[in-house]
């Protein structure tokens, strides 16, 4: 008789995300997956709005990655208007974005994955949480949160608002740099640089320690897949450049402009989730990964001293291309280093003082733009009429593209920690951890008061025989 194990992270938003693990009659894994009930209808509310509102409106989709939507929308409008934002505008958009990356990755590394790394996967959930990590190492936590705050300050100063930036617009940016602002930003960057010698070895040490304790992460939690990242001038780029797809061996299969994304990225509906998954179409359909590790696999070079040195260390430890799920954390750390160095480059680039806007008008047509969001490639695609009104919108987000790999990682976690074992806590921990490595954006309304984040219902023949709640 079939057995279904269901994991329900019942956060404040009831029924928000669930994990199912289906076993066959022999107790072997049949399939597993994450059920995502995303916000419905967002693309529809954009229809009928003035196109030039897109950077402001879409930034409000998500409180965790608003700057990614803000700049993807701006890039799409530039394309629709047939203009290129001036070099100074692109540099300032990128500076804002580096602040966002520092802010977002700091949260993901320290708050989300930190408890697993500091406490270990087998730790009691009562202490294996973010409060536990703070209690265990308050000095590291204080430094990590300071790094996060610095990222937010850069994002806020250049973006005009902290939570929902407003300055990037079609044709450029409204932020005006002056010497006083440059001095303040430089001080923040210097402070962030000064934190790296403490943060980097600490996070790497925790990661390597976790691998020692859980060797299955190195041997079994490996998910070879294609990868997608953005390249500009032979280095990783986050807000402009060509998309590069690689296969499992790291060989480049194709490079293309984002306007051709729909030739290669094929969405399909799955019956158990609102979220559509995406495959890469080139000589067949391929599962692929986006995000920090995919970017490093695809491009392999940052172009700054510290990040490239750490990138080499990453390849030495995890291989190149790397398919170790747990190394997503390490990839975020390398990108954080790069974001600080790149912000330093930008603020000292003489081109940052140039013109920041060009005139824009919409004559009707399509606008496609993208960024590499903290969690992976984010694409905005609008149909805009001759009056500048959005008539259709399509947004491809990172979690959709990582969906197949997330599900494969859940299967692997189940294989190594669930099959043939009766330890419910190990099951919960391993499955949670495998999902956390991708930090999926489940919906953008999840926050504040949580209760019963985990619920497991084990059913046989459709009947629940056991329910475990944390």
């Amino acid at each position, binding site marked *: 008789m079939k057995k279904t194990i269901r994991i329900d*992270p019942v*956060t*404040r*938003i*009831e029924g928000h*995300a669930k994990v199912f693990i289906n076993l066959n009659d022999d107790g072997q894994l049949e399939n597993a997956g994450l059920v995502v*009930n995303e*916000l*419905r*209808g*967002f693309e529809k*509310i954009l229809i009928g709005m003035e196109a030039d509102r897109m950077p402001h*409106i879409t930034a*409000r*989709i998500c*409180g*965790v990655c*608003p700057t990614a939507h803000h700049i993807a929308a701006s890039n799409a409008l530039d394309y629709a208007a047939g203009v290129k934002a001036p070099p100074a505008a692109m540099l300032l958009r990128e500076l804002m974005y580096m602040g966002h990356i520092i802010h*977002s990755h700091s*949260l*993901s590394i320290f*708050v*989300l994955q930190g*408890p697993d790394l500091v406490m270990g996967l087998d730790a009691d*959930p009562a202490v*294996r*949480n*973010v*409060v536990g990590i*703070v*209690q265990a190492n*308050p000095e590291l*936590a*204080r430094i990590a*949160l300071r790094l*996060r*705050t610095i990222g937010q300050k850069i994002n806020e100063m250049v973006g005009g608002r*902290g*939570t929902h930036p407003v300055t990037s617009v079609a044709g450029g940016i409204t932020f005006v740099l002056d010497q006083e602002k440059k001095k303040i930003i430089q001080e923040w960057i210097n402070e962030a640089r000064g934190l790296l010698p403490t943060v980097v070895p600490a996070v790497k040490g925790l990661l390597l320690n976790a691998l020692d304790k859980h060797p299955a992460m190195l041997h079994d939690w490996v998910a070879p897949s294609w990868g997608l990242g953005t390249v500009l001038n032979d280095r990783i780029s986050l807000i402009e450049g060509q998309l590069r797809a690689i296969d499992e061996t790291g060989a480049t299969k194709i490079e293309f402009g984002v306007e051709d994304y729909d030739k290669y990225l094929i969405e399909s509906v799955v019956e158990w989730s*609102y979220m559509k998954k995406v495959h890469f179409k080139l000589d067949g359909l391929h599962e692929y990964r986006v995000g920090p590790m995919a970017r490093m696999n695809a491009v392999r070079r940052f172009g700054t001293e510290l990040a490239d040195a750490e990138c080499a260390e990453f390849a030495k430890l995890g291989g190149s291309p790397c398919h170790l799920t747990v190394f997503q954390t390490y990839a975020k750390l390398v990108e954080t280093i790069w974001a600080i160095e790149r912000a330093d480059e930008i603020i000292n680039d003489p081109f940052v003082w140039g013109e920041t806007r060009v005139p824009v008008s919409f004559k009707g047509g399509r606008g496609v733009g993208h960024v590499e969001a903290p969690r992976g490639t984010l694409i905005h695609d609008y149909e805009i009429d001759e009056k500048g009104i959005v008539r259709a919108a399509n947004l491809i987000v990172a979690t959709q593209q990582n969906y197949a790999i997330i599900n494969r990682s859940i299967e692997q976690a189940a294989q190594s920690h669930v099959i043939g074992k009766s330890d419910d806590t190990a099951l919960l921990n391993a499955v*949670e951890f495998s*999902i*956390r490595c991708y*930090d*999926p*954006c*489940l*919906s*953008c*309304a*999840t*926050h*504040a*008061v*949580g*209760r*019963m*984040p*985990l619920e497991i219902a084990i059913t046989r023949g459709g009947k629940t025989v056991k329910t475990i709640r*944390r």
Partner: protein
Amino acid sequence: MPTTDPSTIIICIGNELIADDAVGFEIYNRLAGCSARLEYCSVGGIDMLPLLNGETDMIVVDAVQFGTLPGMIHVIPWDALPRSSSAISSHGLGLRETIEIGTILYPGTMPERITLVGIEGCCFDRTREFMTSGVQDAIDTAVTTITEMVARGQ
């Protein structure tokens, strides 16, 4: 224009584009001009901590799901809130955990009294026009409740 009361901060949380989640944003707009310092966070969580400047009182306004009727207003001290367990996404860090972290890391800036004003919601996967009528109707009462709390100095 009333003078800002330096002893109280109100932080309203919620995504203005999402049905019942927008209630925090609606209340934020309605509280404009109140005597307390007023802030808005779309997600809340740990981003609230840098906003604190040593106020004695903090009121957090947010949509919640405690299983009651939509629109019910819950006024709860932070340490009576249910504890979250681990999250699978960085979108989900609880208020209680945020306060505990702040108390450990930044004891000098944490308020003495922290109260959640939670408005019971039920629709979080649709857009703003689908705000539940009970939640919409609770906005006035919630604003009055918060204004009275500020006047009483709590």
